[in-house]
């Protein structure tokens, strides 16, 4: 994919017009109101007074993308990161579509992979136009000019112009067809651990997340939602709620009630005082046991869709010296971002404003237009910093709800969900059931591998027409069909079974599930063959030098062969997803009670060209721990149609006192940059499960890890 296909060149630069952004923080949360046509788009905006604003096509939710995308633009524009202000892109897929998705969406570790070339080209084009404008002013050839830190120099005469001085005339020049990009050796910003541009405001409380938005005349609402998904409001007695001082309104939609207050606490008190009767609908009897039984039935009877078939699978299974089978099971997961769900909406007869942090601004805008009946261009979405995404804010269900409530009132309405609602009314990572078989030859070498996944499809919640029966959803098999290994024969297939639970992507997407299964089962095979798990993997990696290199690096750095105490163990995982290669070793100690203590974690990563090594390390550190937290503690379960977990007491997360040291090794590479946000999370659970096997001899085939399976009486 070239940048030219994905970016309209007319929009690369809009210069010369004074763009007024509220405030002076370098990284603004909101697309602050800009005046003039320059507000309409583009990636580079330079005002007459020399202020440089770079428009961020991806949303900042902690992954450091503002710093990384600004680095791509700034590198070629030839400005320093401390000279620029990053602003969130408005919803406009024609300008800001993620080239890999062809829609404006932040997720799947695609941002740098998709924008690597387009953003550098945008910066280079803008620079070239600014130089041309200065050269015109001086009556010299552009080749005689150079740029540095936002200025243009004519070295033979010592003349200097700032970018702001020529922005207006630059904007009238033709946009270069093929702006020359720097060679990697010329990079001044890319490849260095530049300071993050979004963090200064995050350490002094001044960063503005969606939940912090304050609009004149705004009221704040708390909601109560049908406790069972699919249920409907039957009746509500709001007499007591309306008596509470500070309560302004009680609003209804078909599956929820909002109490509006002068402040959130009045609204909360109003919610407590409501007496609501629900028609719980078709899912009222849903339990985790019933869901699991249905999944198992589908796995037995469903029609598999083939994702990959290579080699003579059946013959090899028959002739194998040793045959192994295993069944793995993964739970529904909530995202549990630190910032609870919230949206602020103001609907007027002639327009609608939405203040929110979303990974899919265009979808949110479209929903609002549909619900309000307003034309799309009358719906303004002000995107904000996000207090943790992990996939939750890919879906706009919560924004739809807010618009449906806000439609009923003339004032701006902010809706904040309680933590319990954030968890119980999440759209969940699917549950999965995986059945695997493998054949080994006389020497224990892998001869054949089959992997069948049964799960729902997340895609049906993203594609407007759902997802057709009989069509493979690649997400369900990602990480399974494209493992790093040269299996002599392999079959990967998927049985679709959509559970009566709404689904969403979750950090690591398809590979978080499949790599756990693949890497755990491969570990089983290594032990069955009586071989070291790393040596066993190496034998399958001759044709994959990048995977081999990260595996070797992690083995070395983790001291793979160093002896450990009894009931301690090391486990490894390896994968190649999102254009990145990652190997992780986790050390654990398992008490006789079954309690698990994490030991040292070591990661080795080859993500191609490193845009910002420190942010890469941070993503791997956090990503691995995020995955371990889920594997250790998390599974969403249902009883009487209700989600049983609700807050951090019963949907608990890893805490600092449970966090071991973590070491990240980055391998130098000149390959194109890979994705990072998902990578560590994908590595985590299999490395942990394999370490637990090494420590206890118990194979973890179901998540979250059941400690009772790991306990051992002292005298046994």
């Amino acid at each position: 994919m070239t940048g030219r296909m994905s970016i309209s060149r007319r929009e690369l630069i809009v210069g010369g017009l004074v763009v007024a952004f509220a405030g002076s923080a370098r990284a603004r949360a909101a697309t602050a109101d800009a005046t003039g046509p320059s507000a309409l788009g583009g990636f580079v905006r330079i005002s007459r007074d020399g202020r440089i604003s770079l428009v961020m096509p991806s949303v900042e939710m902690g992954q450091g993308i503002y710093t990384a995308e600004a680095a791509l633009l700034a590198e070629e524009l030839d400005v320093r990161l401390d000279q620029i202000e990053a602003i969130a892109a408005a919803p406009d897929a024609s300008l800001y579509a993620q080239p890999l998705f062809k829609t404006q969406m932040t997720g799947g570790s695609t941002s740098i992979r998709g924008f690597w070339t387009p953003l550098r080209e945008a910066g280079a084009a803008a620079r070239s136009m600014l130089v041309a404008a200065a050269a015109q002013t001086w009556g010299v050839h552009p080749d005689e000019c150079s740029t540095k830190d936002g200025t243009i120099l004519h070295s033979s005469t010592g003349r200097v112009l700032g970018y702001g001085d020529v922005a207006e005339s630059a904007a009238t020049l033709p946009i270069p067809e093929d702006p020359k990009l720097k060679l990697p050796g010329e990079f001044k910003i890319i490849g260095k651990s530049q300071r993050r541009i979004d963090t200064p405001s995050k350490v002094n409380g001044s960063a503005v997340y969606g939940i912090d938005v304050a609009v004149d005349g705004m009221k704040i609402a708390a909601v109560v939602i049908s406790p069972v998904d699919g249920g409907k409001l039957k009746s509500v007695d709001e007499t007591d709620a309306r008596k509470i001082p500070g309560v302004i309104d009680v609003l209804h939609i078909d599956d929820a009630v909002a109490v509006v207050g002068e402040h959130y606490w009045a609204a909360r008190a109003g919610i407590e005082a409501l007496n609501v009767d629900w028609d719980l609908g078709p899912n009222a009897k849903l339990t985790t046991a019933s869901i699991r039984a249905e999944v198992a039935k589908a796995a037995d009877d469903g029609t598999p869709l083939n994702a990959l078939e290579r080699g003579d699978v059946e013959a090899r299974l028959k002739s194998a010296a040793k045959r192994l089978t295993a069944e793995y099971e993964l739970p529904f997961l909530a995202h549990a971002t630190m910032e609870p769900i919230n949206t602020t909406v103001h609907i007027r007869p002639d327009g609608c404003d939405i203040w929110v942090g979303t990974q899919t601004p265009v979808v949110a805008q479209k929903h609002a237009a549909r619900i309000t009946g307003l034309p799309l261009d009358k719906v303004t979405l002000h995107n904000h910093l996000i207090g943790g995404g992990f996939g939750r804010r890919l879906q706009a269900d919560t924004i739809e709800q807010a618009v449906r409530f806000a439609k009923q009132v003339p004032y701006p309405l902010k809706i904040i969900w309680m933590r319990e609602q954030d968890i119980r009314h999440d759209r969940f990572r699917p549950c999965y059931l995986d059945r695997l078989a493998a054949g080994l030859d006389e020497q224990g070498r892998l001869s054949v591998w089959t992997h069948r996944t049964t799960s729902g499809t997340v895609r049906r919640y993203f594609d407007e027409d759902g997802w057709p029966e009989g069509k493979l959803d690649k997400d369900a098999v990602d990480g399974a069909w494209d493992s790093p290994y040269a299996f002599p024969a392999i079959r990967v297939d998927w049985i679709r079974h959509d559970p009566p639970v709404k689904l969403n992507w979750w950090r690591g997407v398809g590979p978080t599930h499949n790599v756990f299964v693949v890497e755990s089962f491969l570990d089983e095979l290594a032990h069955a063959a009586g071989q070291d798990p790393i040596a066993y993997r190496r034998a399958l990696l001759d044709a994959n030098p990048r995977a081999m290199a990260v595996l070797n690096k992690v083995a070395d750095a983790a001291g793979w062969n160093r002896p450990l105490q009894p009931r301690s163990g090391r486990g490894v995982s390896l994968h190649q997803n999102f254009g990145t290669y990652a190997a992780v070793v986790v050390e654990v100690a398992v008490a006789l009670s079954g309690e698990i203590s994490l030991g040292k974690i070591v990661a080795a990563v080859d993500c191609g060209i490193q845009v910002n090594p420190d942010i890469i390390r941070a993503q791997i550190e956090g990503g691995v721990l995020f995955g371990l937290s889920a594997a250790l503690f998390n599974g969403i379960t249902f009883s009487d149609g209700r989600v049983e977990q609700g807050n951090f007491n019963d949907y608990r997360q890893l805490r600092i006192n449970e966090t071991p040291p973590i070491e990240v090794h980055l391998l130098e590479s000149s390959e194109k940059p890979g994705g990072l946000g998902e990578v560590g999370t994908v590595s985590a659970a299999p490395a942990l499960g394999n370490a637990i096997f090494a420590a206890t001899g118990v194979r973890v085939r179901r998540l979250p890890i059941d400690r009772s399976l790991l306990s051992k009486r002292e005298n046994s």
Partner: protein
Amino acid sequence: MISLNINGRDFAVQAPDDMPLLWVLRDLLNLKGTKFGCGIAQCGACTVHVDGRPVRSCMLPAASIGSRKVTTIEAIGQTESGRRIQQAWLELEVVQCGYCQSGQIMSAAALIERNPAPDDAEIDAAMAGNICRCATYARIRAAIKSASRR
């Protein structure tokens, strides 16, 4: 009326007796740096100082504070400990999404205020009430040590 001293200034607010300090700060005084995370004192995102001690403002009725002095993230940089923690947070690039970090910084500043050189166990004990879903814990530990050495 509830009288409160916040960040060295006196305020009088009209609020129900059970209204937690968190919502008084956020919705009545427009001090939005203190965050709502869980509402049940499980995550620490709402941590503020009351007379220098870290407390979870989501469950603390504002009416119960009396004359004690409240400090929030907006003013913690004016204390020596707070300034050093904020600086270390930036130098070690602790922050990712940042939503929990107001609370983390308030807990950390209180820690080094009373214990100028905490070890790992003391850091863990003081910080275990603050959840970070981006899991920036290793850097939090390193940054507290860095700040305490200054």
